[in-house]
């Protein structure tokens, strides 16, 4: 069955990925660790665009870009170079952005995603390197702003712009694609998605018979889905009224959840690209074999391995490999306790509790997970209690054994219950006689006595069964 797409939605994405695991920026030696720095304390003449400064290419940035290209099944270009893309905007101190133009470092790749009818291929048109601009902030709110403040700490960070072919057919698919892309790039250890501004998305979208609009300023995967849903609705409404969708650039307002047209003056550009004379061309295709060797096991391969190595379900394998940190967490746990049991606890329980709290797996310790699972498999605590322990750790911290002790979650040993039952029968002759005389109620009384003796930690249903058992022996 084909994916339902009655409106003929066509979506292409441009994703900016910041190579923020590098030590230094793309063309200068300023640190990439600026997220907690004072504004403009992480700059130099190169990234401030001062006259006479000279950019020099960060070798590792190029190799990181090649890594991403190869992981996305792209070809690495034989020879490439950088261009100047000219436009005036205060976040760009030089008046141009150094980027790649006609020869992107990587092109013609693909990512396979899950869709409602099975696997779906999204082709990657190209991936090119460029520098990140600075960050702008408005004084006061955007409508009544008195001026704009600029922080160049981010200026010159290495970016990789990944451009897809228009192969995406719904907002949901675009989210799946973005999740998968982020996952792959995180596996490569060239980028940390938790840092602010690590991944930014622009989307091109059209409906059958209409023009295409570009939506900018999307900063999250959820945001992408919302922006696209809004844009589809907007375009549909225009077409329903007999109007025409105009080709334009629109800005996504995350707070209001809508897209707003930009004045065409700012949307129309004449970039006058020309080769950057300050940088030499790159000829790096001969490094492909070397870089390929550094590629780690990627999500799809890891999923296959989890299936065969641990014999887990397809669903668990998928859930555990959709985030490299979760997969590493799981493998650590699985070294100590049964992998299938671990898979279920990590994928079904822990991941759910983390998602609910919008936390990553870094919020939980491997050793705690191991000790909780061990307590369950050794029958010391119930599964329900184990979930409770996980919640307590996430909400208030603490160690599993302490939480179990403080909350009296230890299961009462069976022989303790059994002893309490025997004692109760001996001590309550009257009630026992009543039971045999057919008074069902007296059984409830006896259960209550056992529960009293075990201070409520025995399972009432088990106690009842045990009582009936012993009485009828």
């Amino acid at each position, binding site marked *: 069955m084909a994916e339902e797409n009655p409106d003929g939605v066509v979506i292409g994405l441009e994703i900016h990925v910041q190579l923020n695991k590098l030590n230094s920026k793309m063309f200068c*030696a300023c640190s990439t660790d600026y997220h907690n720095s004072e*504004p403009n304390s992480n700059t130099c003449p190169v990234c401030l665009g*001062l006259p006479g400064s000279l950019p020099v290419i960060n070798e590792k940035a190029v190799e990181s870009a090649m890594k991403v290209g190869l992981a996305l099944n792209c070809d690495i270009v034989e020879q490439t*170079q950088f261009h100047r893309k000219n436009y*005036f*905007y205060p976040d760009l101190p030089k008046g141009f952005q150094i980027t790649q133009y006609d020869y992107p470092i990587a092109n013609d790749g693909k990512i396979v995603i899950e869709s409602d009818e099975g696997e779906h291929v999204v082709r990657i048109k190209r991936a090119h390197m460029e520098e990140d601009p600075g960050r702008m902030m*408005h004084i006061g709110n955007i409508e009544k*702003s008195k001026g704009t403040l600029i*922080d160049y700490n981010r200026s010159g960070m290495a970016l990789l712009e990944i451009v897809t072919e228009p192969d995406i057919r719904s907002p949901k698919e675009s989210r799946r694609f973005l999740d998968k892309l982020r996952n792959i790039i995180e596996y490569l250890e060239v980028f940390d998605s938790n840092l602010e501004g690590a991944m930014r998305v622009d989307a091109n979208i059209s409906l059958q018979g209409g023009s295409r609009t570009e939506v900018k300023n999307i900063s999250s995967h959820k945001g992408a889905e919302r922006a696209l849903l809004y844009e589809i609705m907007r375009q549909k409404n225009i077409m329903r009224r007999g109007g025409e969708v105009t080709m334009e650039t629109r800005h996504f307002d995350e707070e209001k959840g809508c897209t707003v047209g930009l004045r065409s003056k700012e949307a129309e550009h004449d970039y006058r690209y020309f080769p950057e004379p300050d940088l030499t061309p790159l000829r790096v295709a001969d490094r492909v074999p070397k870089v390929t060797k550094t590629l780690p096991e990627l999500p799809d391969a890891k999923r296959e391995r989890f299936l065969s190595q641990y014999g887990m379900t397809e669903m668990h394998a998928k859930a555990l490999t959709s985030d490299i940190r979760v997969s590493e967490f799981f493998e650590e746990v699985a070294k100590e306790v049964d992998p299938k049991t671990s898979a279920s606890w990590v994928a079904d329980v822990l991941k759910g509790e983390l998602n609910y709290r919008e936390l990553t797996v870094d919020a939980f310790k491997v050793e705690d997970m191991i000790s909780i699972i061990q307590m369950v498999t050794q029958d010391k605590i119930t599964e329900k209690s184990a979930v409770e322990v996980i919640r307590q750790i996430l909400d208030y911290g603490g160690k599993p054994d302490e939480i179990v002790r403080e909350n009296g979650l230890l299961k009462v040993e069976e022989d303790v219950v059994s002893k309490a039952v025997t004692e109760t029968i001996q001590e309550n002759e009257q009630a026992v006689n009543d039971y045999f005389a057919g008074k069902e109620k007296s059984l409830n009384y006896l259960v209550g006595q056992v529960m009293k003796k075990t201070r409520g930690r025995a399972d009432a249903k088990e106690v009842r069964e045990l009582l009936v058992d012993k009485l009828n022996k």
Partner: protein
Amino acid sequence: MITKEDVEHVGWLARIEIDENDADEYASQLNDVLNHFEQLDEVDTENVPPTYHVIDLVNVFREDVARESLTQDKALENTSSSKEGYFKSYRII
């Protein structure tokens, strides 16, 4: 052919104010320059790869090592307009 409108458009892109009276003259001067360069079209460039860079050098890299940056004061030294450690510009949307 470069028109007066082209001159004005390019002037806007470069943020140069061009007096309307001068635009015609600039257009004709620029056309002279272009015509002059058109002589190059007569050269047979079949099988000649484009020259993107005049020096025959590739792969000039630096190692991925971070060094100390300028201080905030130093970075802001050349601007006439700053606020709380930021460069300040007129309102941009």
